[in-house]
């Protein structure tokens, strides 16, 4: 495992990491500080970095007078369901495209990509009647279906690529052991591509977490608002609730951060190298 890392000078490593962290977190730090400010501090000149008076009003309003926690719950449900459903569809598809022979495979693969060519905003009008006739409107399940359809093509590609990296001898060995194909995927191949599955899951979760257009179109009642739609309601025509927007942004980042910290371990998996070495 260790030999796979390119050793870097520690100083350079930390310099780069620090730079990256400042860039990545800068807006969030500003968001966090802003969420504690009172309105007279918001736009003081010269720029006031720290609040003169630390206030929790933004969070009190956010939780007390907006349904933000429900937005978060909705987003989590949609993200979790979409992830499970997409993986159930994309793992078999990725496997078959990696291992079986298809005539015109490049065509199938490019069709998958071409599903992403169109600006989604122009698909809404045609999608709406389908969603309505199948009863998938105004509930979160409809969102899960649409999201799954949109994330599956890339997930298939990704997982196919990870299957491609597994030497064919592993398949052969499993078959000699008497595994059928499904058992082989489940017990032998999947564990090897755990990092790939985790990366795909991260992509799916984040897509579902950030998606706005379908959410506002197909699930736009206060009951089914997700986080992005909820955040956008804080930007009114005549009122701009910076406190709710920043407070909401910070709050919404917490579950995502926890999610990342849980999965990052799995993203780096010693399985492959360790096992193949035996």
């Amino acid at each position, binding site marked *: 495992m260790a030999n796979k890392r390119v050793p870097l000078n520690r100083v350079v490593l930390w310099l780069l990491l620090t730079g990256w962290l400042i860039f990545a977190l800068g807006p969030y730090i500003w968001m966090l500080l802003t969420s504690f400010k009172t309105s007279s501090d918001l736009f003081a000149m010269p720029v006031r970095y720290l609040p003169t008076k630390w206030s929790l009003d933004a969070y009190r309003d956010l939780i007390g007078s907006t349904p933000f926690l429900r937005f978060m719950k909705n987003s989590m449900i949609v993200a979790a369901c979409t992830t499970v459903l997409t993986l159930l569809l994309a793992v078999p598809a990725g496997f078959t495209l990696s291992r079986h022979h298809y005539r015109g495979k490049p065509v199938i693969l490019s069709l998958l990509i071409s599903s992403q060519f169109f600006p989604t*905003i122009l698909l809404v009008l045609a999608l709406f009647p389908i969603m309505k006739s199948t009863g998938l409107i105004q509930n979160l399940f409809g969102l899960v279906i649409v999201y799954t359809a949109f994330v599956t093509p890339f997930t298939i590609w990704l997982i196919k690529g990870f299957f491609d990296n597994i030497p064919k*001898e592993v398949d052969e060995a499993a078959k000699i052991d008497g595994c059928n194909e499904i058992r082989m995927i489940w017990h032998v191949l999947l564990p090897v591509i755990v990092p790939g599955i985790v990366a795909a899951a991260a992509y799916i979760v984040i897509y579902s977490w950030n998606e706005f257009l379908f959410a506002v179109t197909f699930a736009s009642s206060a009951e089914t608002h997700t986080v992005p739609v909820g955040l956008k309601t804080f930007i009114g025509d005549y009122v701009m609730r910076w406190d709710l927007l920043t407070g909401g942004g910070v709050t919404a*980042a917490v579950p995502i951060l926890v999610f990342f910290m849980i999965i990052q371990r799995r993203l780096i998996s010693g399985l492959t190298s360790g096992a193949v070495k035996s």
Partner: protein
Amino acid sequence: MNEPLTVHVKAGEKKRKRTGLSKYLYLLPAALLIVGVIGYPIVRALILSLYAYNPLNSGKTFVGLKNYVGVLSDSTFLKAMSNTAIWVVGCVFFQVVFGLLGAVLLNQNFRGRGVIRGLTLIPWATPSVLAAMMWMWILDGNYGLLNDILMRIGLIVHPIPWISQTGTAMASLMLIDVWQGIPYFAVMLLAAMQTIPGDLLEAAKLDGAGAWKAFWKVVFPLMLPTLMITTILRIVWTASYMDLMMVVTQGGPAYSTLTIPLASYYRAYTDLKYGEATAMAGIQALLLLIVVVLYLRLMSNKGALDNGK
């Protein structure tokens, strides 16, 4: 560890033929869903591009290719086309470069690695509207944070109106998109590094190659398929991504950030010329198709498209 495994395995070839029709069952559910939810609306939209259609009226008139001709002879749309090209190339290039660097960094051993990995990924999970609003504030030309910091350091004397001048508006939007997009590449490439059999590196090391050389010669080529697919999809997504323009610049100043999807959105929803809007989207899809086909050809030449070939 005497016989390193390689990916160039021919042994499986014969058995592959045997699977027959059952292999389609693996693909079918995913294919049905994609066709139903994405394929059908795309076809519908493309058909609409041949009509004059106001979404508020129920009637539509067949006009053939008139929408395409009209759109292509509109100088604003041509501007949008070149803006889109600049936008896509700029965003994706920097994301790939920094994403690759990020993946290498996150793969190192260092204290607090778990937390830092989580933190660096956060921009990716930021809803567009939030990212747009916060960056708009940071980049503001009067009370913005970036100008304040640059002035305090002494790099500039007067604040720069980043998003308010034609020369810097597009670059500002790219900055936001790159901010959001680096973690995507970092995660995908980090994952790709992990599934590379370790003994390949061992083999490279036995040959006496240095670590960096081993990375470029052995690890990088194996990451290439993932890199290429993540890149091509990012190109496609970036071309259609207009949330930032909608919030930050509305395509301005003076059309400098107007891209094809934004132009088609305006055409559809404020001008109520839906047929022309879908024609714009159709042109964009055609251009992307050309890019993707060229790209896939490149990929299959490099053997990235199909295992073992």
